[in-house]
């Protein structure tokens, strides 16, 4: 098991129909990693995500889980390894939080089965990990956005997936909830056996929390590396036309972090340089 990476994405090309959106995506994901995916709107982050989740067919390439090609896997088998955490959304029905988390057990249940006592215990455990136990009986439609996001993460934990794919988990959250959710995700990756891939729009989230950063630029090119190597002043200017300073600050507990300080947006015809 240790010989193979948890997830191995090899030369993947993704897109809709006959159109390729992102080309040549290759990376591996090890246990404990927190990979942040950055890129402007409309370059194909969602397309790549849906492809990684096998919601869209691969146009080329291979996705291996612990060395095994997933091409022939059923949705159930894949879901046992890879979980999806969508953006906090409004459910059509006011399900209880505990019931929403228990839906993570679907991959382990036959089509005619309902969650057993053990499945509900797994749901309770997942809620406890994210300090959500007090919300168990509340209606999912009546809790806050930050709480909903954590509920969806708890659902992926109840799924017992090893790779969690998260679609902008910090969007639409206030500052405190953003940091709270990111703290929880980082704590999860610290626990044995879980890796997280997350999209974000904030370079500082990637710098402060990511173990590695992947980017897609406007030409659909994919790149990956250490946060401080990828998120540079040049990258932010070229991709977002934002002038910035990336500075190093000392952390109170020792060590240092890099932070991005935006200075302003460049004018649209950026032929000055």
């Amino acid at each position, binding site marked *: 098991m240790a010989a193979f990476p948890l997830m191995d994405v090899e030369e993947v090309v993704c897109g*809709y*129909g006959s159109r390729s959106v992102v080309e040549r995506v290759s990376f591996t994901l090890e246990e404990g990693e927190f990979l942040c995916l950055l890129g402007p709107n409309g370059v194909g982050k969602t397309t790549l995500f*849906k492809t990684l*989740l096998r*919601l869209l067919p691969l146009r080329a390439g291979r996705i291996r889980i612990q060395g095994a090609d997933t091409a022939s896997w*059923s*949705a*159930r*088998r*894949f*879901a*046992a390894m*890879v*979980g*999806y955490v*969508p953006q906090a959304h*409004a*459910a*059509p*029905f*006011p*399900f*209880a939080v*505990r*019931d929403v988390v228990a*839906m*993570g057990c*679907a*991959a*382990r*249940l036959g*089509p*005619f*089965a*309902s*969650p057993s006592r053990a499945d509900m215990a797994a749901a309770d455990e997942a809620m406890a990990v994210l300090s959500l136990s007090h919300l168990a*009986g*509340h*209606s*999912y*439609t*009546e809790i806050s956005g930050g709480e909903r996001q954590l509920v969806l993460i708890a*659902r992926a934990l109840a*799924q017992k997936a090893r790779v969690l794919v998260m679609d902008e988990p910090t969007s639409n959250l206030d500052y405190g909830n953003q940091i709270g959710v990111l703290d929880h995700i980082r704590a999860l990756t610290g626990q044995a056996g879980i890796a997280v891939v997350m999209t974000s729009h904030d370079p500082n989230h990637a710098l402060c929390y990511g173990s590695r950063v992947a980017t897609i630029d406007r030409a659909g090119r994919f790149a990956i590396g250490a946060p401080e190597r990828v998120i540079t002043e040049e990258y932010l200017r070229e991709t977002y036309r934002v002038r910035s300073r990336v500075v190093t600050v000392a952390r109170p507990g020792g060590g240092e972090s890099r932070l991005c300080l935006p200075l302003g947006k460049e004018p649209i015809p950026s032929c000055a340089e």
Partner: protein
Amino acid sequence: MVSLAVVTGGRWKAVLPVATLAAAFLLSFLVGRYPVAPHTALSVLFAQVLPLDHGWSPEVETVMLRVRLPRILAAMLVGAALSASGAAYQGIFKNPMVSPDILGVAAGASLGAALAILFDLGGVGVQLAAFAGGLLAVGITYLIATCRRERSDSVLVLVLAGIIIGMVFHALVSLVKYVADPVNTRQAITFWLMGSLASVGLRDLLAAAPPILGGLVVLTLLRWRLNVLSFGDDEARALGVDVGRIRLVVVLCATLITASAVAISGVIGLVGLVVPHLARMVVGPNYRTLMPACTVMGALFLLVVDDLARGLVAEEIPLGILTSLIGAPFFVALLLHTRKGWG
């Protein structure tokens, strides 16, 4: 909060509706123009399984077992069918505001039945034609929606296609009525479209019961998956659910149930919309308990409304008209007082 009550009070919440349904079943034998005393009714029923002295007139037994029993059973069967399929459609389409009328099922079944009446195909012919019409309508609707499958909003397309197909079939029903013999055929079609259980006999019941009960069993078995499907295709698939296959089975079962019910009762509006909402208020939105609750409460609802239809005034009120008159204000009240996140 609501669901905690479900967890702690699950036992009596399961017993209460069933007990109420049993009571309504017994009381329904007393409703109607021919008077039957309560103790006589009980004696007649017990006499079917116990050796009792027959101290009542044979007319009483005929009225109870040949006239009222099929009708009571039909009301319960049709009510359960329309409510359960309504709840299933709501889960599949992630929308608490849809009902079996969506997908054009009811309209398609109406056209089939109207044609069968026009060509005088008899009771079983009406049933088969209604079922075929319902399936045809849902088939066309589904075909239109799958032509645009790569779009993510396939549910919206499905619902819109259902509305359009429903309109087309309604227009065709009007055409059939227009060309029908105005003296008796047109009247028969009109009466059938209003929805009534007055002419349901034991044979109709025996023909409709197997598909309805079979469909109900499948929907009950698959009920927990409906929770997951209500979160959308992508999430359900990422959670390991075979979305395409489950949805197809659920739509087929719900359509089979609806068409079979429409075939014996005509068009009975709003039951499939109102009862799932009532059930949700009582047991919460989890399909694990919602589906059985819908089945029982649907049976109870239509049984009571049918009792009103035949007991309220001397001349019977068509059931479909009564359910719409009761259901519509109820639904408006629901819209105005709807809980957050329902709309």
